[in-house]
C-alpha cells in the first residue's frame, strides 16, 4: 500500500472518506494526483459488516459528544457515520437528481424570513456530472442498469399511488445493483441496507471507491485520523492538516491543497477550530456563514396497517419512490416539494421511531401487526435559515481540547403545511388499498446533513464558490454536502457525488494550469 511522507507538501489532503471525500479522492488518484485521505473512523473488516442493526449502529455511528438545540435531540442532534466509507455505509441508495427549480430557492420560492440564496450553478451545468455519477454508482434505470425489481413494500406503494392518481412511480433511481456491475454483485434483497450492505450490491465508497483508489498507487487512507486543525501560511494559503492518529498521537500532514468532507457538522467545526490571527473567526468565514444555514430536510414517516401480509423487511429498505409531489406547487400551501420513498423498518425501529414513548396495548397491538405493515419515508425541501447551524461550545472541549459543536435547528414555518400535506398523501395512498390504520410519525432526523458551508456567487453570502473552493482561500475546498445551497427534496448523495466528480475535474485543470 502506498504511503506518503508527512512532510510531502505535494499531496492533496482529503478529510473524510464518504460520498464527497471518497469519490473526490478516488477521482484525483485515478488521474495520478497523490492523495492522503484522513478518515476519523476505523475501517471495518470483511466480517464486521453484519445483518444486525444494533451492532452496526455501534460500529458506524458518529457518537462524539455534541449538543442539540431547538428541535434536536440534546444528546444526539444529528445522525452520520464515523467509519471508512462515511455515511455511504448507512445510506439506503436513493439516488435522485435535484430539479432545476431547486437550484433557485430564492428566485423560485420567495419565502419570507429565510436566508435562502440561489446556487451559483444550475441543473444544466450539473447534468453531465449527474450522468457520470449515475453510471459510476450503478443507479437503477440509468444507462444499462435495469430498474430494481420492486419488493413487496414498493409494490404496495406503487398500487396505492396508481389508485390516488400518481403517475411517477419508479424503482429506478436507486444505487443498488439490479444486475452485477463494477465488480459488485446484484442485490439479493437481503434488507439491512442501512447496516452497510454485506455483499456490496449497494454503492458505497467503502465498496466501490476506496479499493479502486488504493490500486492506483496514488492514494493513502489513514483510518482513525481525526482532523483537528487546518494550518495556513502568512499568505493565507493552507499548507497542512494537524490530526490525531489512530493511537491518539498528534500528527501533521503537509498539503498542496486541502479538501474538507467531514459532513455538515465536522466540516464547519474544523474550519471554526482552525481560527488564527489572520482568520480570527475561522477559515473561510469572512462572511460569517460558516456553520450557518444547516439543512436536514423536512422528514416524515408513515406506516400503513394493511389488510393482508406485506413483509416489508424483505429486500431493499428503500426500493423506489414516487415523484409526483416533488414539483413546486404553491397551491398546496407550501413552497417546494417532497419525495415519497419506499421504506422498511425493523420491529425496534417501528417501536422506537413510530411509537416513541408509547407503551401498553397501544404499542403491542401495533407491533403485533408487523407482518402487515407497509411504510413510506418522506423528504422535503428545507428552507435555509441563518439561525440553524453549528457553533462551537464556549467551554466544553473534546479529548483533544477542541470545543465541541452545538447544533441548532428549528423548522421554518413552511415545514408544517408540507408535513401535513405529506401525511395526508401517505394516508390516501394506504387507504386506497384498504389500510386498517395509517400512522404518520415525525422523524427527528434523516442522515441528510447539509448546507453549513454553502456555495454562493457572492462571497458575502456563502463560504465557497460554484466549484466548492473557499471564497477566501485559494487552495481550500469544501467537498461534501456542506456546500449545498439548498436541500431540494431528493436524497443528497447523488448530488454530492456529482459535485465531487466535477470538483476533481476543476482541481485537475487548476493543477495543470499551475494555479495550485
Amino acid at each position, binding site marked *: 500500500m502506498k504511503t506518503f511522507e508527512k512532510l510531502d507538501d505535494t499531496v492533496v489532503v482529503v478529510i473524510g472518506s464518504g460520498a464527497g471525500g471518497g469519490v473526490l479522492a478516488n477521482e484525483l488518484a485515478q488521474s495520478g494526483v497523490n492523495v492522503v485521505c484522513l478518515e476519523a473512523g476505523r475501517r471495518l473488516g470483511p466480517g464486521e459488516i453484519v445483518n444486525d442493526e444494533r451492532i452496526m449502529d455501534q460500529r458506524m455511528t458518529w457518537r462524539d459528544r455534541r449538543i442539540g438545540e431547538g428541535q434536536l435531540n440534546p444528546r444526539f442532534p444529528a445522525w452520520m457515520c464515523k467509519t471508512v466509507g462515511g455515511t455511504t455505509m448507512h445510506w439506503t441508495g436513493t439516488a435522485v437528481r435535484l430539479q432545476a427549480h431547486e437550484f433557485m430557492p430564492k428566485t423560485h420560492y420567495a419565502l419570507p424570513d429565510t436566508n435562502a440564496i440561489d446556487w451559483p450553478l444550475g441543473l444544466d451545468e450539473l447534468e453531465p456530472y449527474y450522468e457520470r455519477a449515475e453510471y459510476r454508482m450503478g443507479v437503477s434505470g440509468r444507462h444499462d442498469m435495469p430498474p430494481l425489481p420492486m419488493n413487496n413494500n414498493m*409494490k404496495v406503494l406503487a*398500487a396505492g399511488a396508481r*389508485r390516488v392518481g400518481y403517475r411517477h412511480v419508479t424503482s429506478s433511481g436507486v444505487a443498488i445493483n439490479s444486475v452485477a456491475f463494477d465488480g459488485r454483485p446484484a442485490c439479493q434483497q*437481503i434488507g439491512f441496507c442501512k447496516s452497510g450492505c*454485506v455483499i456490496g450490491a449497494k454503492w458505497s465508497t467503502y465498496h466501490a471507491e476506496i479499493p479502486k483508489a488504493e490500486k492506483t498507487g496514488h492514494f493513502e487512507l489513514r483510518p482513525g485520523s481525526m482532523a483537528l486543525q487546518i494550518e495556513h501560511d502568512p499568505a493565507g494559503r493552507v499548507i497542512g492538516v494537524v490530526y490525531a492518529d489512530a493511537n491518539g498521537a498528534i500528527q501533521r500532514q503537509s498539503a498542496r491543497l486541502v479538501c474538507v468532507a467531514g459532513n455538515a457538522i465536522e466540516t464547519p467545526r474544523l474550519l471554526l477550530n482552525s481560527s488564527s490571527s489572520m482568520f480570527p473567526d475561522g477559515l473561510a468565514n469572512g462572511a460569517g456563514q460558516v456553520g450557518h444555514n444547516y439543512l436536514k430536510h423536512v422528514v416524515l414517516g408513515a406506516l400503513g396497517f394493511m389488510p393482508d401480509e406485506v413483509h416489508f423487511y424483505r429486500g431493499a429498505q428503500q426500493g423506489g419512490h414516487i415523484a409526483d409531489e416533488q414539483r413546486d406547487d404553491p397551491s398546496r400551501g407550501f413552497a417546494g416539494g417532497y419525495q415519497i420513498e419506499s421504506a422498511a423498518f425493523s420491529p425496534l425501529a417501528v417501536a422506537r421511531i413510530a411509537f416513541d414513548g408509547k407503551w401498553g396495548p397501544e404499542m403491542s397491538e401495533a*407491533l403485533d401487526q408487523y407482518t402487515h405493515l407497509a411504510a413510506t419515508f418522506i423528504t422535503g425541501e428545507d428552507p435555509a435559515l441563518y439561525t440553524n447551524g453549528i457553533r462551537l461550545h464556549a467551554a466544553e472541549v473534546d479529548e483533544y481540547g477542541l470545543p465541541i459543536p452545538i447544533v441548532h435547528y428549528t423548522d421554518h414555518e413552511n415545514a408544517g403545511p408540507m408535513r401535513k400535506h405529506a401525511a395526508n398523501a401517505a394516508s390516501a395512498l394506504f387507504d386506497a388499498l384498504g389500510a386498517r390504520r395509517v400512522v404518520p410519525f415525525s422523524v427527528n432526523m434523516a442522515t441528510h446533513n447539509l448546507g453549513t458551508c454553502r456555495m454562493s456567487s457572492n462571497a458575502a453570502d456563502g463560504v465557497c464558490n460554484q466549484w466548492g473552493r473557499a471564497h477566501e482561500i485559494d487552495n481550500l475546498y469544501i467537498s461534501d454536502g456542506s456546500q449545498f445551497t439548498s436541500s431540494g427534496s431528493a436524497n443528497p448523495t447523488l448530488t454530492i457525488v456529482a459535485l465531487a466528480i466535477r470538483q476533481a475535474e476543476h482541481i485537475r485543470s487548476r493543477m495543470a494550469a499551475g494555479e495550485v
Partner: protein
Amino acid sequence: MNVIGRREFLLGATALAGLAALAGCDKSREDHATDAQGDNGLAALVLTLFPHQGVASEVYADVAERARKSLEARVDWDDLRQEGASLLESIGTEQWAALDDAARAAFASAISDTRFFKSFYQAALPEFYSHPDVWRRLGYPGESASQGGYLHRGFDNIDWLPEDQP
C-alpha cells in the same frame, strides 16, 4: 383477579420487589444482582410496557435483566435508584402486591412522567424489540444474508394487491 393468569399475578406480586431492588432497597448490588425475585419484579414492568400474547415470561425476565444492567452502567444510576425508592413509598407495598393488569398499567401511567420510568422504558424497549423470541412472535426473521436474502424467498410475493393499471 379472575381474568388474569397465574403468571401475571406472580409477576405483579413481585414487581414491587423488583422496583425495590432497582431502587437500592437491597443491601448490596451483589445481593440484588442475583436476586431472581427482583428481576421477576422488573419483568412485570416490562410486561406492562410491552404486553404481547405468546411471549414467554422468561423473555420478559431476560429483557428486565438486560435493561437493569444497562441502567446500572449509567452515571446517574444512584439518582434513579433513589427516585425508584421514593416512588415505592408513594404507593405502598400491599397495594402493589394486589395489582392486576389494569392496575399495574394505571400505576405505570401514574409514574410515566418520572425519570425512573422514562429511563427504564428507554433501556427496556431496545432489548425487548430486538429479542429473537419477540421477533419470532412478531414474524420478523432478522438476519437474512446467510440464507441468500429474500431474492428467492418471497421479496416480491405479495398477491393481494389490486391489478388495476395506471
